[in-house]
């Protein structure tokens, strides 16, 4: 067992092992919790490695908190330790948007759009906005994984979020993505924020850029 878990954390099992972090399910002070840990990378210069893990751990915790200020649910933070790169947070139970869509349930897509709109209006980009990072729990949308998020007012970043979401919807439901996207967009614009309207405009621009299109599509323009 790893010796550098936060004090009192009892791991149950590993939920996911990503490129830079490992996610554990476990208990802490009698609660069910999720532990996200950024592991040291032996290939990186030690000083660089520690700097990155500390700043990313703190940054992610800040984003989780800012998300709540934006009026969107995210896991509660119980404890962070930048030295060992850990964030202890509440375990949120419920299906992800991916799982719901696979079952043919599209009833949460509009709510998901609304949540993302609030996040952007508040000045946070998510950075990895896939349907697997949106969860439905107790009749509310919960946003997860702020590992790549930024506090920003750059419309381009928000449009990149939407571009990722659109791509994921396309690969998830194929032909039907258009109607799902319309749902998502109506939720996204639901609060009537100028930032969201600008983001939708920018998204159209991004979709028209050369590097996102194949040669045949460019020719037909």
């Amino acid at each position, binding site marked *: 067992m790893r010796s550098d878990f936060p004090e009192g954390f009892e791991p149950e099992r590993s939920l996911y092992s990503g490129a830079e972090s490992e996610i554990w399910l476990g208990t802490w002070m009698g609660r069910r919790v999720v532990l996200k840990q950024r592991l040291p990378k032996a*290939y990186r*210069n030690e000083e660089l490695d520690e700097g990155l893990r500390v700043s990313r751990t703190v940054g992610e915790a800040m984003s989780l908190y800012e998300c709540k200020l934006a009026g969107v649910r995210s896991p509660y933070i119980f404890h962070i330790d930048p030295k060992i790169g850990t964030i202890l947070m509440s375990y949120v139970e419920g299906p992800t948007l991916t799982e719901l869509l696979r079952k043919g349930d599209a009833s949460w897509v509009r709510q998901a759009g609304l949540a993302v709109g609030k996040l952007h209006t508040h000045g946070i980009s998510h950075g990895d906005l896939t349907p697997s990072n949106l969860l439905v729990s107790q009749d509310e949308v919960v946003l997860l994984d702020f590992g790549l998020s930024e506090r920003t007012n750059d419309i381009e970043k928000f449009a990149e979020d939407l571009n990722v979401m659109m791509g994921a919807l396309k690969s998830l439901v194929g032909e039907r993505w258009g109607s799902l996207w319309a749902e998502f967009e109506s939720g996204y614009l639901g609060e009537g924020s100028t930032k969201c309207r600008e983001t939708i405009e920018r998204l159209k621009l991004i979709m028209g850029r050369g590097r996102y299109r194949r040669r045949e599509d460019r020719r037909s323009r």
Partner: protein
Amino acid sequence: MYALGLESTAHTFAGSVVGEGGRVLSDVRESYKTKAGGIHPRDASRHHYSVASSVVLRTISEAGMAPSAIDVVAFSRGPGLGPCLRVGATAARSLSLFLNRPLVGVNHAVAHLEIARQMSGARDPIFLFVSGGNTQVIAEVDQRYVVFGETEDIALGNMLDSFVRAAGVGFPGGPVVMELATKGKRLIQLPYSVKGMNVSFSGTLTALESLLGKEPIEDLAYSVQEICFAMLLEASERAMAYLEKDELVISGGVGANSRLREMASIMCEERGAKFLDYPAKFYSDNGVMIALTGLNSFAHGDTLPVESSTVMSRWRADEVRLPRGV
């Protein structure tokens, strides 16, 4: 069956004859070098014109065979610098007509990846393609090389070249930085920019240029290497996790840097994956990769009529359907 391949996308004009099973019979290279560094496309193409016939003749004579024994002529059709590409294309067309052998147009980026795959023995790897003009994280999907991550601005090789040119410490960037870095010890903070599987180097370059003369060049070289290579490997590792691949292969000139290969090998070991290396001379531009890929394409019936063999300087790797299967 034997293929003669010609490479001329950028600074190198090279030729090679490859036989079945990837047997390399000859490997001739001539590079355009300037004192100040950098490439002027017109001057590079003049260099290629001046060495073309001698490279072709040496390629055939080193292979120890009669010209008539060659079955197919392959050339690097793109992407690359137009004037340079046209030299290789012209030489290849002439050979094809003179020897009365079919012509095959090879995508330079695909050739880099194909030689990496074949020489390393990888089955289904993540490719880190990093050279003077390219920085991409690639994997094969449905017989195509798909780009999953790339630089949002300049290529790493290009960035290293710009850095050493601004510092006035020689050229090209890769080898100079590697040499200087061995004497550097201290890590200097430079922008570290990874966004998912994408990277960005322009901010790092600006910061480096502003530190010239204020910090020892050896420490700057050490830091740029540590920081930029870590960015590349973070993006590669994310691709490996996301696509569930357990092999990593590097291709392109920057791969000749031994620190990058060392870091790649540690990263793979840590995640229970394999970093598959092959001789460093095949990382940079060469004719072998063109002959090898051309031979394989030809075996799959992919030939190019001379009259429609114009070069394609912006030909993307993902537009090519890869020669696979029987």
